[in-house]
Structure formats: C-alpha cells, structure tokens
C-alpha cells in the first residue's frame, strides 16, 4: 500500500480512506479494495464487456478513437464499501485519450468519486476520456464526477453504462469547467429490475458552449430510468441538453422520466433543450418536462428588499435551482465541496 503525496491528502481531506491515483507516476493505491489491470491482463469476462455499450449505441456523439491508455478497474463480488472511493486522474499531457472499464461485480456496493487534476493549469489541454461502467447483478454503484477546469482545458467526456439484473447505477455529474464542454452519457438497462438515475448540473459562463447528451435505453422489464438535467446559463454562454429515454418492446412495466431545465440569467445567453421519448412498449409510464426561463422577478425583488444586492440575489436563486440535484449526492464532504465550487462560480464576474 502506497501512501498518497501530502498534496493529494490535503485535497481529499483527512477523512478520505480509500483512494486510487492514476497519473504519470503510474498507479498509487491508498487502502483501496479496487484492483486495476490493463485490458490484456484482466479476466475474459471483463474483456467481453469492453466497448460493448459503445458498439451497441446507435450514434455516439463523438467518434471513438483508440485510447493512449486502457485500464480495467474492478470492484470484487460481494464487497461492500461504506466510505467513498476516490479515483483521481492526474493529467500531464496536452492531448490525452484514456479508456477506462469499470466493473462492479455481483452484489458489490460502492460510491465512486472521480477527480481530475491538471498538473499545469496554464497549458492548453484536450482531455478525452471514455468510461464504461458495468454494474452486474444486484450490485449498487454511485458514480460521481465533477469537473471545474480553467478555460485552457477542453473536455470531451463519454460515459457509458450497462446495468444488469436488479442492479442500480447512479450518475451524479457536474460540469463547471470554464472551457467548451461536450459530454455524452449513455446507459443501457439490460437486466430486469435494473435502475439508472442520472443527474447532471452545469453552469455556463462567458462565451462557453456546453453540450450534454444523456440517454437511457431500457431493454428489460421492470426497469426505471430517471434523467434530471439542470443548467444555469450566464453571460453569452450557450447550453444544450439532449435527453433521450428509449423503452424497447417487451420492457413492460418500465418507467422513464426526464426533467431538463435551464435557467437563463443574462439576455445574451442561449439554451436549447430537446427531451425525446422513444417508446416501443405499451405497458409503461413515461414522461418528460422541460423548461427554459429566467429568474422570477418577484423572487429577485423580494430578496433585494431583504438587503441582498442584485448579484447576491441571483447567486442565491442559482444555488436554489441546483440544490435539489446537489442533495442527491450522498457523500457529505463532496456536497460541501460542490456547494463551494458553485458558490465561487456564481459569484464570479467575467
């Protein structure tokens, strides 16, 4: 067991018990139940999952290019971890493509928190990361990832999930970087009773373009797919949510729900939301709600009458708008951190 560098220890806080660092110096483990292999060294079962969702997905937003590095991270069967597991990526190179296959074996339970750290924030960077998460029978996995990079970094995140029988996958995603961001998140519920809940929040500023696609394919009966996207667009930023809920024929008693909302704070900001439902089965419940709107004038007036400046009032309303999503994050320390990131972001002037 390696010890973490002091810098990272401070970053994660004194309570962090389990961490895995993936960086230039290779892998560093700190009391983690995860095993890491290259694709060639892992089991055949795991290898069979590699690129499975990506190949079945009809139209990936970004064309897949071979990765510079492929890793298989595995959580062994029946391992239940109470404390969050930190997976930390340290980025050094200007252009980097990584492919990660994460397998949660049957009956395992864990909360994963993904971190991205840029070694040199003043260098232009293109980060392309492809993540495949496999949640096998009866396993429960929470996967949280929040990025808050400086303007120099360009992000392209592709996340895929396969959820098997009675397993649960929860995505908590936040996109708070200052550069252009494009993400896709496609989950397939392949086993009966599989559940996926995806929440995504974002704040757009400056001239930034934010494009996010979230898709849940429900291919088995009794599955539930819930998509929640909330975005706040400031200044001249542009935001786009594409949400797709697909229920295949035979996936009876499936439930697909979707909520995509944008709050637009400035006159020049733009927002597009396309909530799409594709339903091939009749015994289902499905619904979506979408809205784009500005801050309620009355609320702003009320807050200002209580002594807040216009800017503070806007910041408070923004926070309130994102709060329901922040509350879905189960780890308290991460919630606090998130609140801090959002508060910094909304109080910024460009």
């Amino acid at each position, binding site marked *: 067991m390696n010890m973490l560098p002091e810098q990272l220890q401070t970053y994660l806080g004194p309570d962090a018990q389990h961490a895995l660092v993936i960086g230039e110096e290779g892998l560093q483990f700190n009391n983690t139940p995860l095993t890491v292999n290259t694709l060639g060294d892992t089991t055949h079962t795991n290898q069979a999952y590699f690129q499975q969702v990506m190949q079945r997905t009809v139209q990936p937003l970004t064309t897949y290019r071979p990765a510079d590095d492929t890793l298989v991270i595995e959580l062994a069967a029946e391992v239940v971890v109470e404390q969050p597991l930190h997976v930390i990526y340290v980025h050094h190179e200007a252009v980097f493509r990584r492919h990660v296959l994460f397998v949660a074996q049957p009956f395992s339970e864990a909360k994963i928190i993904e971190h991205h750290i840029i070694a040199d924030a003043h260098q232009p960077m293109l980060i392309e990361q492809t993540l495949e998460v496999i949640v096998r029978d009866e396993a429960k996995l929470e996967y949280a990832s929040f990025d808050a990079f400086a303007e120099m970094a360009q992000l392209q995140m592709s996340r895929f999930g396969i959820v098997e029988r009675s397993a649960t996958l929860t995505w908590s995603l936040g996109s708070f970087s200052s550069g252009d961001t494009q993400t896709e998140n496609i989950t397939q519920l392949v086993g009966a009773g599989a559940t996926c809940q995806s929440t995504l929040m974002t704040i757009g500023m400056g001239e930034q373009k934010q494009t996010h696609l979230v898709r849940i394919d429900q291919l088995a009966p009794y599955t539930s797919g819930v998509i929640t996207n909330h975005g706040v667009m400031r200044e001249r930023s542009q935001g786009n949510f594409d949400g797709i809920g697909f229920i295949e024929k035979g996936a009876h008693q499936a439930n697909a729900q979707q909520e995509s909302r944008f709050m637009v704070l400035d006159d020049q900001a*733009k927002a597009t*939301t*396309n909530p*799409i439902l594709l*339903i091939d*089965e009749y015994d*289902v419940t499905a619904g979506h709600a*979408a*809205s*784009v709107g500005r801050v309620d004038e009355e609320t702003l007036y009320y807050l200002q009458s209580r002594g807040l400046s216009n800017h503070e009032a806007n910041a408070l309303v923004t926070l309130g708008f994102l709060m329901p999503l922040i509350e879905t994050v189960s780890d308290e320390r991460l919630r606090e951190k998130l609140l801090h990131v959002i508060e910094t972001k909304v109080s910024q002037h460009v």
Partner: protein
Amino acid sequence: MEQVPVSEDYKFGFNDGDIGILKLDKGLNEAIVREISRIKEEPEWMTEFRVKAYHHFVNTPMQNWGADLSHLDFESIRYYVKPSERAEHSWEDVPTEIKDTFEKLGIPEAEQKFLAGVSTQYESEVVYHSIHKELEDKGVIFLDTDSALREHPDLFKKYFAKLIPYTDNKFSALNTAVWSGGSFIYVPKGVKLDQPLQSYFRINSENMGQFERTLIIVDEGADVHYVEGCTAPTYSTDSLHSAVVEIYVEKGGRCRYTTIQNWSNNVYNLVTKRALCEEAASMEWIDGNIGSKVTMKYPAVVLKGDYSKGTTISIAVASAGQHQDAGAKMIHLGRNTASTIISKSIARNGGNVTYRGLVEHGAKAIGAKSNIECDTIIMDEISKSDTIPFNKIKNGLSTLEHEAKVSKVSEEQLFYLMSRGLSEEKATEMIVMGFIEPFARELPMEYAVELNQLMKMEMEGSIG
C-alpha cells in the same frame, strides 16, 4: 387477440365510381406541368413558376427523417383530374352522383342555410361554390384558388408562395408545380365573421393526388374561422395528398384554421402549413389527424409582430399500418409573443404515432412565452410512440415550459368506471374521449359530433 373490426370496412366503404371528365396520364414531367397550366388558362408567370418549382422538386432529394416514404411512387400518381367543365354555383346544377356522396358523408342540403359559405372540393376542381350574400356585402373574397388567380391577380401575386416558397421542401415544390384547387380567402379590415367558412375536400379517383393550395389573408383587425374537413373512400393503391396552406394575419387580426383529416388508410398526407402573424395578431391551428397511411404535418406559426400569439391544438390517432408524424412549429421573432401547443396522441392496433415539434425564441423575441404539452396513450402491446420536441431559446428573457406523458389507459380509471357498471369497452371509450376533450371542445358543434362518431368507430374492437 385482435381481429379486424367490421367498422374498418364500413368507415369509408363507399365509392362513387369514376366521374372525372378530363384526366392526364400518370406520372410527372415538364410537359404535364405545362399542360396543367394550359388547361387552366393561367398567366405566363404562373406557368413558368410551376416549371421552376417542378425542376426544384426533381432536384431535391427525399428527406431522410420522419416517416417512411420509400413506398411512395411519384410515377404512379395522376397529377390532374378535372371533374366537370366549370365550377358550379347553384346546388341544383351539382351532379346527382356527387350529391350522393355528400349524403353519405352526412352533409345535408339544408346545411347550406346554416353555413356562411360552402366551397366544396370534389376531385381536383371546385364543383360547388356558394357564397352567402352577406359575405359578398362585407367584401370578403371566398373563392377556389384557381378562380382567385383569374379574378384577383394582383392580390394573388402579392401573397402567393411568399411564406412557403417552393424551395421550402420537396413537397412544397411538388405542390407549387401541380397545384389545383384549394381555397382563397381575403377578409378586409375590421370584418369579423361569426360563422365559420367551410370546405370539404375529397379524393375519389384511384391514384389521384390532390394538391390543393390554400391562401388566407386576414387584414387588420379582421377575424375568420376556416374549417377544412377531409374524408376519402377506401382504395387499395397508394394515393398522395400534398397541400400547401399559407396564412397571413395582419395587425390585430385573428385566424382559426380547423382541420379534421380523415383520409383512407392508403393516403400519404404530406402537408406544409404556415402562418405569419403581424403585431398583436393571433393564429390558431386546430388539427386532427385520424386517417391516412402516413401523415407528416407540422403546422407552423411565425410570430413576427410584437404581442402576437400562436396556438396549435392537435390530436393524432394511429391504427394498424398507420404512421402519424405530426406536431407543431412556433417561431418567435417579435417581443412578448406567446405560443401554446397542446398535442394528444393515441396509438392502437399497431399504429405508430410521433410528436415532432420545434419551438424557437429568436434573439430579439424578448419576453416570449411558450407552453407545450404533449400526451400520448398507447392502447395495446403492438403500438408505439415517439416524442421528439426541440426547444431553442436564443435570448435570456423568455420563458418556455414543456411537458409530456406517455402511458397506457389507466387501470385505476378503468377499474373505477367498471365498478360503476360500465363495460370495459364503454369505459375505455370514455377515457379516450376524455383524453381528447381539449381538442374536441375547440371544434364547431357539428364537427365535434362527427369526431365523436369517428372516434367511437375507431375504438370499436380495441378491446381484445
């Protein structure tokens, strides 16, 4: 479990034989386009315009989105049929055979007195056309589009194909090349019509396309309600209906356009409908799509003037072999513009129903508001439904709300109604009628009754 209900046959099971007098060969080429224009004795500019549109049609590829149009064979369609030499003006002159069909459709002769004006399109040309004297006195022009080109050339040329140019899409090009019939309405400043203007459209000849062109101009402060009803007898080979409807609503005007489309299950119904609203004008599309094999229809409102308002209330019912791909478009350009879309879809007996819509708030559409609601009921295990809305907001001062639900007939509601002594069939019918009520209540009374009958026939046999 499902059997073809008897009502499917009954619904459109009458056919008056072929009464067309003049027919052109099947298929389309430049000579046919010129021939159509020659028969109609059109001015030079229209002939050339048709030819230009024809070439654009030929050079435009078929769109690759939406419903499947691969079985549509343009060469097997007859593009022009003229049933009688001139448009009839009095009911007595109308051929008995045509009257018989109206009888079956349930339009009694006495209805004339009730209706403000009837322009009945039977095959491509208008054969019966009556305008109430009151309308003429008010200066309202209500003609078939061919007569309007002859009698009001300046007004016609000013508005024709300005809102929907032939370059808009493949089918607007086709319509511009071979258009025939349709209604032309001009309502002068400040004239408000209490009675709706109505027109019945019918396709009766086998393989005959119907390409009517409707142009409505509502001048400042005027108010008109136009009702278009479509029914067609059953035929076994594919038929095409490709209409273009252009509506201009000037400052403070209001136009309501009601359609109950009930083509037989072999008709491709590909319609381009668009309205332009000036300041404080209001446009309402009331759109029912029940029949046809494939429908692709997205009534649009361009909200150009400040404080203008657009509304689309629609239902789509897709049964066996049908694909209803319908929706609405709202383009907000002016300030404080408002739009509402209510769409109700029903898929049954293996039908496929798609809501496809676009709401766009332009950069200058400050204070624009939109409300979109699209609900779907999937009645059985072999039917399906897609909901594909696009919402684009290009300024930070407008508001949009969108909601949609897809479900089957609620078992709780069914259980409750059956516990009160209703049969499953009756209970299902009640739930469905309740579901489409927001649409039905917008219809004129006699149309609401007709819709009720139609829906009841549609629903028969839907309980296994």
